[in-house]
């Protein structure tokens, strides 16, 4: 059983990556084989509107051959996948968005007869980190990630979601213009809340692995 985690943050060792690592530890503890992929190290773009995946005799996979192609192949054969992203402009990052365009669109049909070419249930988890507070993110919740709302239609399984709010942007706030942020509050979040979020991420990963195991057992 294989679980793939995709890091949609440009930072490889910050909040998003830390939560993703915990989720993979949780999945591994539930006996999954795990792999982490950092998107920003790869050379790729989003969907090119070539429509190869919509041809009558076409393969329902993305035809573009670049740095993302092997990642998409891994995602297609995974038993569960986790996508993680910081929130920029109340949205997931453009890097994760580009990856999801290429992963989702080939499964979407232009047909009245069926909605997806995906023939199995795939557990999908989303982990979001945000420098903004919960109230702000709640306000924009509906539009954070358009792919989340398509997930059940495409992969026949409701997605699982977790958030980490009010994260620290920098290690040293004194070097930045930051009067909109309460640095003590940020320090408290980092010391107290973030470790709890890491524990939640561990459970989140374990839960996905358990679900993948159930599905594999039939």
């Amino acid at each position, binding site marked *: 059983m294989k679980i793939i985690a995709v890091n949609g*943050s*440009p*930072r490889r060792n*910050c909040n998003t990556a830390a939560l993703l690592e915990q989720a993979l530890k949780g999945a591994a503890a539930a006996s999954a084989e795990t792999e982490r992929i950092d998107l*920003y190290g790869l050379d790729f*773009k*989003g*969907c*090119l*509107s070539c*429509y190869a995946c*919509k*041809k*009558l005799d076409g393969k329902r996979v993305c035809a573009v051959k670049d740095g993302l192609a092997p990642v998409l192949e891994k995602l297609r054969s995974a038993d569960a996948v986790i996508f993680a992203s*910081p929130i*920029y*402009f*109340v*949205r997931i*990052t*453009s*890097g994760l*968005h*580009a990856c999801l*365009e290429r992963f*989702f*669109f080939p499964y*979407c*049909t*232009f*047909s*009245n*007869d069926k909605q997806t070419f995906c023939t199995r249930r795939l557990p999908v988890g989303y982990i979001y980190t945000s420098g903004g507070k919960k109230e702000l993110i709640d306000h924009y919740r*509906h*539009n954070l990630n*358009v*792919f989340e*709302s*398509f997930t059940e239609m495409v992969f026949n399984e409701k997605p699982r979601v977790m958030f980490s709010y009010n994260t620290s*942007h*920098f290690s040293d706030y004194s*070097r*930045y*213009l*930051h*009067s*909109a*942020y309460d640095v003590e509050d940020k320090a408290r979040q980092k010391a107290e809340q973030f470790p709890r979020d890491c524990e939640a991420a561990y459970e989140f990963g374990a839960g996905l692995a358990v679900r993948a195991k159930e599905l594999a057992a039939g």
Partner: protein
Amino acid sequence: MKIIAINGSPRKNWNTAALLKCALEGAASVGAETELIHLYPLNFKGCASCFSCKRIGAVRVCALRDDLAPVLEKLGSADAVIFGSPVYLMSVTSELKACLERFVYPYITYMKEKASHFPRMLPTAFIYTSGAPQGLIEQVRAGLNPCEGLMDRVFYEKPEALFSYNTWQFQDYDKYEHSAFDLGDKAKQKDEQFPRDCETARRLGARLAQRAKELAAG
């Protein structure tokens, strides 16, 4: 007076590009110098969370040096800017999102005292094309583009928006699965509505150039 149009579609000669060219024709007709920039041939990614633009004493432009850097420089000194994108899975393309992350974010402050570092009023517009019909797009209107709602705050001027719905997606529909689309309706849109949309784009370009001229005159 210079007006720049950004093509956020991977296709250089399809609906989005056609409307952008019309908008630039309109701008040129009232004396603007114009330039159309295609994003997809450029090698760049979205914001890298380096936070250089938030440092005390920093220059408020994106610090990344790649193919987008000269484009951002042009946008920062333009008298008006038009962004075009097809709607993919209820959103502007990942490529336009990446460009907007890098263009808009450096001007946004983390300060209570002011919202934007941008020094003047900048007229902007968004042109959206969509293979889906109007009714569907109106349902997801609020989530299409996270940056549209920020433009007013950052550039002190509300952006215009133009939609072209139910556009023609392929050269030859016979080669693709398309039972979800009404081809008679599509053909009618292509022959009758799209030329009207082009005319609307010309008027938008002229209006934007006129506004830029007013602002330049003080």
